[in-house]
């Protein structure tokens, strides 16, 4: 990798584990290429720390191509940093200036406890999915694609909801640490398709109940989640989930 000319001061959250208190620690990195991704800059810093005999900074990362949602970093007060519609791995150092000070913190929510440094436990999302974010079908050969006609507009809308990668940026940026955008995307991707209908009203009740049990906050419609979502999930999904929830609670006779 070509060496560059950026020198930066980093203030990074270091925390040993869930039991201890963390704090911001200052680090200097030099000769950073503007073409590096933010995570590659972290790799350089960690190599440096390891060579000095210090403990490297623990952070989540996986695909590094913007589709897995693992790289959870709260950079200068915004999830995934200053650019819109991307995850941290797609953020490049050219988005910063030489001499900048960058503050990096983990997602902060009681439902996302810190495991170590910048890595948080997001299994609360998995438990919400397990509570109802699925359809029950018998296995066998796939049906003919045209057996169930679905209007294009509806298919597109379901697909847009399905673009959610479960990164947790919505929770991280919400002033209430609410998970409504995530849960509504997972409800909406199925609620708009015929395959999702049999369990539609059970699903929304179960998933909302699990979301509340995990200790996420209550939505106050600030819209911060939609603005920060790397996949552009819309607030329309939250309204749809609210409608489905009211239908389930006040119209359907089955209470979950």
């Amino acid at each position, binding site marked *: 990798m070509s060496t560059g000319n950026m020198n930066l001061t980093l*203030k990074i*959250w270091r925390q040993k584990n869930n039991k201890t208190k963390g704090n*911001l620690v200052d680090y200097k990195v030099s000769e950073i290429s503007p073409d590096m991704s933010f995570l590659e800059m972290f790799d350089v810093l960690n190599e440096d720390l390891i060579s000095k005999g210090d403990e490297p900074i623990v952070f989540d990362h996986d695909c590094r191509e913007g589709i897995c949602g693992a790289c959870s970093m*709260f950079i*200068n*007060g*915004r999830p995934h940093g*200053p650019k819109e519609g991307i995850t941290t791995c797609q953020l490049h150092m050219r988005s910063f200036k030489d001499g900048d000070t960058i*503050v990096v*913190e983990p997602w*902060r*929510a*009681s*439902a996302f406890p810190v495991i170590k440094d910048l890595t948080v436990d997001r299994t609360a999302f998995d438990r919400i999915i397990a509570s109802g974010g699925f359809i029950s079908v018998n296995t066998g050969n796939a049906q003919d694609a045209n057996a169930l006609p679905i209007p294009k507009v509806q298919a597109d809308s379901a697909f847009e909801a399905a673009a959610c990668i479960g990164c947790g940026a919505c929770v991280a*940026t919400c*002033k*209430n*640490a*609410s998970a*409504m955008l995530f849960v509504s995307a997972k409800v909406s991707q199925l609620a708009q398709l015929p395959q999702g209908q049999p369990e539609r009203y059970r699903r929304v*009740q179960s998933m*909302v*109940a699990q*979301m*509340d049990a995990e*200790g*996420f*906050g*209550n*939505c*106050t*419609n*600030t*819209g*911060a989640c939609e*603005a*920060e979502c790397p996949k552009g999930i819309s*607030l*329309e999904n*939250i*309204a*749809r*989930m*609210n*409608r489905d*929830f*009211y239908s389930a*609670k*006040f119209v359907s006779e089955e*209470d*979950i």
Partner: protein
Amino acid sequence: MAGFGNAFSSSIGKKLIMGITGLFLISFLVVHCFLNSLIFLNDGGLTFNIGAHFMATNWLIRSMEIVLFAGLLAHIVQGFRLWAQNNAARPVKYAVNNGAANSKWYSRSMGLLGTLLLIFLIVHISKFWVTSRFTGIPTVDANGHEDLFAVMVETFKNPWLVALYVFSMGSLAYHLLHGFASAFQTLGWNHKKYTPIIKGLGFWYSIIISVLFAAMPLAMHFGLIK
């Protein structure tokens, strides 16, 4: 509530209560603002006092007054509960949080704005509602109606109260600016055709109501309305 499970205690249910009571209070403000705007007729408060007399004596209005206080109380209690829960959902705060990058400051400050309005309401209710319902309005006007207009003129001689009223109407404007459209979103009314209309209505509603209300103490204090 039996049979409805966690419909009202769930996070969505709690917001439903905020939305419905909020819209109810919004509808109340229309009536309140319209009747008070009768002072702008500048007829020494004669027409305004007729309106005030009707509001004080009509049985339907008096019954709705109980519903209004219940709705207001529910909105306040639920608001504080939501604020406490939302605060607890993030026990460790961010060292740096650039909220301005993704949302309006007033949408993130509904609890603060609501608390300012509560302080205002305590002063406002003790000045006018308690006077008209309990301690009694001292004088009558030319029509023989209780002269609530005279109470207003007297109250707004105090510049500190005028300042409090004008500042509070600023808080009200921002509270409504978020609250109006937010209530519809909570009710699930997000629609490509209607949402832009709701947002436009909410904007103008917030501005018009707040400016009219703020103009009343100012106009009286500076002697434009006598």
